[in-house]
């Protein structure tokens, strides 16, 4: 299994980056072995459509789930269309902590497969 997390720095001790399309790095992690590799976000300075560009990258990397602070409407539609699970890291601060909470099933899931959020 592979999950992608938006991060501030390219390592497991980094803080999570709350922005999906504009996050500094995409860290792809195996949540069981904690093996990881980092990609700088190519769309960090895009003038527009950064969320879609990021979603396109996520799909190409064939990850199973994405963890970020939130997903904009365009990124949300794109990830939903590709059936990629989206999780919010909520109050989590570091990547390591986010993965632990993901493994424990404690992160909130959003999207078509998730229970409806009450507004």
């Amino acid at each position: 299994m592979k999950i992608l997390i938006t991060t501030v720095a390219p390592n497991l001790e980094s803080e999570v980056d709350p922005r999906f399309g504009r996050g500094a790095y995409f860290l792809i992690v195996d949540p069981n072995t904690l093996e990881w590799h980092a990609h700088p976000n190519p769309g960090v300075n895009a003038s527009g459509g950064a969320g879609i560009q990021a979603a396109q990258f996520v799909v190409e990397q064939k990850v199973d789930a994405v963890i970020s602070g939130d997903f904009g409407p365009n990124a949300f539609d794109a990830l939903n269309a590709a059936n990629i699970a989206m999780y919010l890291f909520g109050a989590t601060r570091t990547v390591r902590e986010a993965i632990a909470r993901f493994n424990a099933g404690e992160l909130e899931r959003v999207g078509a497969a998730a229970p409806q959020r009450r507004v």
Partner: protein
Amino acid sequence: MKIAIASGKGGTGKTTIATSLALSLANVTPAPLFLDCDVEAPNAHLFLRPTFERRQKVGILIPRVDESKCTYCGKCAQVCQYHAIAVLGKKVLVFAQLCHGCGSCALICPDRAINEVPGVMGVLEAGTARAGIAFARGVLNIGEPMAVPVIRQLKKWITPAPNQSVILDAPPGTSCPVVESVRGADFLLLVTEPTPFGLHDLRLAAQIARELKIPAGVIVNRDGTGDARTDDFCAAEHLPILLRVPFDRALAEGIARGQALVDVRPEYGAWFRQIVAQIANREVVR
């Protein structure tokens, strides 16, 4: 002759100046053509009170993907500079609000799976206004993020008669919609107020004039407020100050009632005509 009115900062009096400039020129034949290019919040009609006689929907061509022909090769997504089309496994999504209508995706598609269909972004309206002024404006649909295609088509929609002056009322700011509005103008009137905010944006607007090689001059509105730095800037940049409109309660009250500047202060009519004559005779040089 085409005269564009821009400011940078919003609320400095672009429309106040533009509408009265048009009214001042309305006693000549043909009466001027007025284009309200502030398609996100057009307001010149409040002062010129046109009756609209023609209306046309406008927009750009956006891609529609025939998924029975699509092989999901992803070339359309790669070529799109605006990320308006995404290929996500066995699905293609078009984000119409990001599309600039360039047609690259349809051109590059090896399977001819992309047709371009009209996407409506707004409407153009034209008619005759006070004093016989030919009036046209664009109105961008609410929620639509891109003003430029509507402005571009507004400027193409009506061809001015020979010797007809064109007054272009630009939107505030200094981004793409302003550049699109003032592009091709013979002269750029920069309306400012002598405040730090006014000056900050005047600097940016003056750069647009320089970049586009359009001769420019300044009208200082609410003269008497603020400080001397706007005058200093204009002197240093060799930007002529063509007119000063004092901070005047009677003017503000008139405008709030829908009166034009020249309705409240008719003496400005001759001054506007003089400015236009100076511009036409190339007496105004930066």
